[in-house]
């Protein structure tokens, strides 16, 4: 049985794939609490959730019984300082499991722009100081939030010490020594809204999501603020996909896990609108490494749709056969045929922040 976790503005929902169709498992856990990140750890089956309480701060919980019960964990904490403007955690934007050779290692990308590491399944967290103090981060700035944030952490399945992250706004950063040192990547990205002489500055790139092909992690995809970019060297260098219809703007990308040339996107009318182009919600797919794109609309609303797909709300399962997509207006769809047709699971959920297929 397949399971789809739905992190929403009002709690964590679960849908299960029964014999014939997807069924909601019922009311959400953490009802009324906004979910900012979720992880279903493929190594031990533990679940991690980040809740972004409006009043009381960001809180983490872990479940060791597939969501039946949860234990609260300490949240990542920035180093103590007496400065009045000393950083404090706003929220966790993403989790990533460490490698198969690193049981218990969990990474968290945060706002303000930090990467935290836990080596004990979330019981304690340590800020990665090398990234926090990396030369060039003075150029980072917030995009939609007061501070920059880390939303993408890609751990290389071939080498757990090789990690690629992306920052809005702060570009692509790469470590090959487990976070002891970082170098800037993302050469070739282009940020159209910056002054022309700054448009290609790597530290000023507004990547919305960075993701890798699981079986070939050198192939990476970036849904950037002003376009779709492809990398053949693990994010160090990128090239732009041109003439993407109906739009090259969006937040999400779902790479095929084994076919390096395939990926799916959820386009929107850029960037001051952020709604489906002409009110038609579509998913675009490339099968040739970002040269050409097909548009899929079967099963998706095609009249007066205002669904926007956030960066963690378009996902693909480990087989590469099934996709899921959730929207800001509470629409949830699943495709069992690689995006060709879509089945509406609900049109009435809270705004959806993140989706996760159980591994």
């Amino acid at each position, binding site marked *: 049985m397949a399971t789809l976790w739905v992190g929403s503005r009002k709690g964590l929902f679960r849908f299960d794939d029964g014999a014939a169709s997807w069924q909601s498992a019922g009311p959400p856990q953490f009802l009324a609490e906004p979910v900012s990140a979720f992880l279903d750890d493929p190594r031990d089956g533990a679940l991690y959730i980040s809740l972004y309480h*409006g*009043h*009381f*701060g960001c*809180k983490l919980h872990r479940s060791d019984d597939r969501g039946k019960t949860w234990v609260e964990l*300490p*949240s990542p904490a920035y180093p*103590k300082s007496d400065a009045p403007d000393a950083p*404090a*955690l706003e929220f966790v934007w993403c989790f990533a499991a460490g490698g198969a050779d690193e049981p218990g290692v969990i990474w968290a990308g945060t706002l303000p722009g930090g990467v935290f590491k836990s080596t004990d399944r979330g019981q304690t967290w340590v800020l990665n100081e090398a990234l926090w103090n990396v030369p060039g981060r003075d150029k980072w700035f917030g995009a939609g939030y007061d501070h920059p944030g880390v939303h993408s952490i890609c751990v290389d399945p071939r080498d757990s010490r090789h990690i690629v992250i992306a920052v809005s706004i702060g570009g692509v950063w790469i470590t090959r020594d487990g976070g002891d040192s970082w170098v800037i990547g993302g050469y070739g990205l282009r940020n159209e809204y910056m002054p022309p002489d700054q448009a290609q500055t790597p530290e000023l790139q507004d990547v919305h999501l960075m993701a890798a092909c699981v079986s070939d992690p050198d192939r990476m995809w970036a849904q950037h603020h002003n376009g779709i970019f492809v990398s053949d060297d693990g994010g160090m260098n990128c090239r732009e996909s041109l003439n993407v219809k109906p739009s090259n703007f969006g937040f999400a990308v779902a790479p095929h896990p084994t076919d390096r040339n395939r990926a799916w996107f959820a386009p929107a009318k850029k960037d001051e609108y952020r709604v489906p182009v002409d009110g038609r919600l579509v998913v675009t797919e490339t099968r040739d490494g970002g040269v050409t794109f097909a548009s899929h609309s079967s099963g998706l609303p095609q009249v007066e749709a205002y669904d926007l797909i956030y960066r963690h709300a378009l996902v693909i399962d480990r087989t590469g056969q099934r996709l899921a997509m959730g929207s800001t207006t509470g629409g949830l769809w699943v495709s069992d045929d690689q995006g060709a047709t879509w089945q509406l699971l609900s049109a009435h959920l809270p705004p959806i922040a993140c989706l996760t297929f159980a591994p």
Partner: protein
Amino acid sequence: MVAKVRFTSHLVRHRPAPMIDAAGATVAEVLAAGLAGDDLLRSYVLDEQGRLRKHVTIYLDGSVITDRLRLSDPVGPQTEIYVLQALSGG
């Protein structure tokens, strides 16, 4: 000085937060004593820098505290401290 500290029911929904009697000369000292041993509950009220969370308010004998950064407002005898969510930020 010994103060009584009460928490909003909105917080109690997330963490057990019984009324506390704790000693201290300032709000910071009272909270430090009252929340000692419960770092998770403390994190609902204060951020990791010890500042009052942006969308949390503390009433001290009927008045909002003035020092949200260091919580240095003095505590008198018979003081009652109410920790509640602000109207902003929900």
